[in-house]
């Protein structure tokens, strides 16, 4: 299991477009991915659930990866977050 966290810097938070791009990226990996706040995580491969998190600027986002390609998935996700959110 790999866990990463990221503080959102985009003033618009995670809106539809970046949420969709992130879900699309994560769906390429076999591992399971849970995403959200420390207390409330959802399946990060379900767009409607990720959008519903409605994470805003300054919120800390946590992602938990579990499965054979967890390391590669977590690295790709972190890179996406840093360049888009």
């Amino acid at each position: 299991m790999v866990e990463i966290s990221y503080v959102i810097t985009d003033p618009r938070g995670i809106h539809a477009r970046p949420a969709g791009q992130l879900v699309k990226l994560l769906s390429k990996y076999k591992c399971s991915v849970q995403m959200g706040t420390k207390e409330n995580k959802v399946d990060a491969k379900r767009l409607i659930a990720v959008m519903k998190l409605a994470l805003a600027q300054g919120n800390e986002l946590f992602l938990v990866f579990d499965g054979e390609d967890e390391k590669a998935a977590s690295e790709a996700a972190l890179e996406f977050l840093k360049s888009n959110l």
Partner: protein
Amino acid sequence: MFGSFAKMLSKNKDIAVNAPCKGKMIDNSDIPDETFADSILGPTVAIMPSDNTVCAPVSGKIIQLFRTKHAFTICSQENVEILVHIGINTVDLNGQGFEALVNENDEVKQGDPIIKFDADFIKSKNLSTIIPMVICNESDFEQVNKINADDVDTHTQLFSIQAKK
């Protein structure tokens, strides 16, 4: 969440997703946003609206009204998850020009008004009023077919979706 009766019904016929407003269906390539134009989020259609009310494309439950009121998600009785996004880059308007007519978790009927928007205001900010609509959970279904149309209203079917057997 929904009864077994609804599930039984949905197995026997295709699920219809209608246009969310009156207007003209446009080619996805004419959407000034790559994410929607290339259907990155899922099967996508787009409407150039000719009136100011966006309605439920299916009967179901409002999952989310975006904080900035420029988009909503709805889950149909057959569990089709749909995003309706009013305008392009309208997240930047921060809620100005939009009025929500329902609340999250409300059960609505296909054609019920969900969000009113001020098209002139959106245009005055040099933003497009094009309304993309996306099926968010294509992989939960056997097939999602787009139906081409020209002039549309909330009675015009734009997707036909087959449940998994």
